[in-house]
């Protein structure tokens, strides 16, 4: 087995326990695996920002004043330099199979945070140009690691169309998303990075406006 990231061949150590119960072959070598930093310790219960104490952070308090559509965000990894390189190769260079680096951790972090299976996964969509450029939507690739129904319920409002609107229209609709398939059940939005939370807030607002009772978010990296 070659490491999915560095392509070094991994020679599995054979000890008597592995002979009796062969372990699952690892996708990533140990050296590379040790570079990923899974989020742990106290964090903001709403946005998963690492905090000294587990309390709602200032950003989330501010957001709540404007909109409370997004109930919380759960992230898997911390954003470090290593993650930056990995994301760059996966998302921008388009090395699709690198999602395999995260798959096991995505599944275990998700099932820990969302034990109930009563929700739809809605990946954040890319604009048509971005999708054509990259060939795949990284948010959808993350959602596909999970064992829940996926609905591509959102689309990005074309910025050209948006510019044809009147100024008043534009002021009302800074939200870049429109709902193409209303969902009347709980939704977990999926995206690769949570940075300011704006994108996910907009997506949540759009879904709630169309009758979605509860929106949470699951993101790969907490920026």
């Amino acid at each position, binding site marked *: 087995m070659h490491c999915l990231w560095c392509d070094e061949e991994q020679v599995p150590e054979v000890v008597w326990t592995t002979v009796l119960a062969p372990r699952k072959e690892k996708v990533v070598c140990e050296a590379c695996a040790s570079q990923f930093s899974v989020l742990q310790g106290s964090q903001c219960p709403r946005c998963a920002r690492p905090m000294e104490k587990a309390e709602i952070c200032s950003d989330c308090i501010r957001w709540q004043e404007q909109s409370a559509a997004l109930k919380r965000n759960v992230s898997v990894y911390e954003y470090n330099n290593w993650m930056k390189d990995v994301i760059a190769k996966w998302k921008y260079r388009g*090395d699709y199979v690198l999602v395999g680096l995260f798959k096991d951790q995505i599944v275990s972090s998700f099932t820990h945070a969302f034990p109930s299976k009563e929700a739809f996964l809605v990946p954040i969509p890319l604009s048509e140009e971005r999708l054509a450029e990259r060939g795949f939507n990284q948010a959808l690739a993350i959602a596909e690691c999970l064992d829940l129904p996926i609905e591509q319920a959102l689309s990005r409002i074309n910025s050209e169309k948006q510019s044809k609107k009147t100024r008043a229209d534009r002021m009302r609709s800074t939200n870049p998303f429109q709902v193409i398939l209303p969902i009347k059940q709980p939704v977990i939005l999926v995206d690769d990075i949570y940075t300011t939370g704006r994108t996910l807030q907009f997506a949540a607002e759009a879904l709630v406006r169309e009758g979605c009772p509860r929106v949470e978010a699951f993101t790969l990296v907490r920026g």
Partner: protein
Amino acid sequence: MIFSMSMSFDWIPSPLTSVSSPHSSKLAGRLWLEANLPLSTEETADLIEKGLLTRVPALESNWWGRRCRRCGNTTERLIVPWPCGCGQTCHYCRSCIEMGRISSCTSFLLWTGADPDWHQHVDACAWTGQLTPFQQQGADRIVDTVENQGRLLVWAVCGAGKTEMLFPGLERALALGRRICLATPRSDVVRELKPRLQQAFPHVDIAALYGGSDDVDDGAQFIIATTHQLLKYARAFDMMIIDEVDAFPYHSDPKLHFAAARSLKRHASLIYLTATPRFSLKASSYLKKLPTVFVPERYHGHPLPVPRFLAAFDTKASFPKNQLPKTFNDWLHQKKNEKRRVIVFVPTIKMAETLAAILDGAVYVHSEDAERKEKVQQFRDKEISLLITTTILERGVTFPSIDVAVIDAGHLVFDEAALVQIAGRAGRSAADPYGDVVFFHSGKSSAMVRAREAIQDMNRRARKEKR
């Protein structure tokens, strides 16, 4: 130069039309992805329509498997299926993805108009220096190789003055209106060569290309590039020089061999330059399959310093006790008294740290050192008289007057080529052509013995041919 399947470039189309265009020199000889073409969509469509640009699949599918036509990769685990944006399940190459993803549905656009007419330069070379007889011998063979479009190995010792030796051959190629590429594995060499060559050939359009370079190739007749840049070229050059052909990463990366072979035109001259050819080149040379010219003497006419072997069996034991191996300690003291400046090569970063600590915070450099350039400059400016380094300084850097030590010279990282290159750091200046080179070891390796023999062999050859 071993490939899992034969290197065949039959898929590269020959010119389909004798029509030319002002774009020809910019577009010819490249593997273009549509997104990277320096043309508008309308211009592109027009050139395709006229047969000046032709689409060719980027990934080929054979009975034995797939191959990426950009990097030559055939390894199954690196050509993987994925749900492609085109709606199909395509395969893509992971090996060269840094240059943009190539999927089964991706095409290259190749120039199939008339070959560009490269300028025929009269007396292009402005250099007025004098070559030594050995350099002249090398230069003459290079000129021959340019004229008969053959291949040549220039086996020239460290400090032979390779660059000047190329000038007559380059001038000849330019007079014949050829397109030239000087490729090297190392980007610092590209940066160093560009100003020297531009000065020697002031009226020639020269582009220096490496990852992150300012220059772009918009149809330069003479390209100086890292071997990595060749991944973008196909049937582009009439003359290719590969400098330091044995250096990392070229020698160990089949992608780069594939790219270099593809970058040559069907009839072209190919010149390898090295002081330390690896096994496959050496073998072709001995078997007379590869014409070879030796340049066994340095430009200043003095023999290469022959390394001395000094036993230091206490190496492993002394470092943990914060001590230096005895023989090395004595040597270092002697150098201090003689006011000689020294470079100490060590096999690992860890040993560099340890040694620096024992020597009261001496300066050390390694490949992951962000301040590498500054530290080397400090040594060059004589602010420090001792520099500890891993093998990263084995090539390229030249300091006029130094002595050289290798600690644990029997270590695996010091192969024959590395040791010859390291020994070649000493005695570089005409004013001080001798230098002391010592391999400290706890049991000499065959690489050490072969390195010393190779150096002695060159010195012998120089003496013999001078008579």
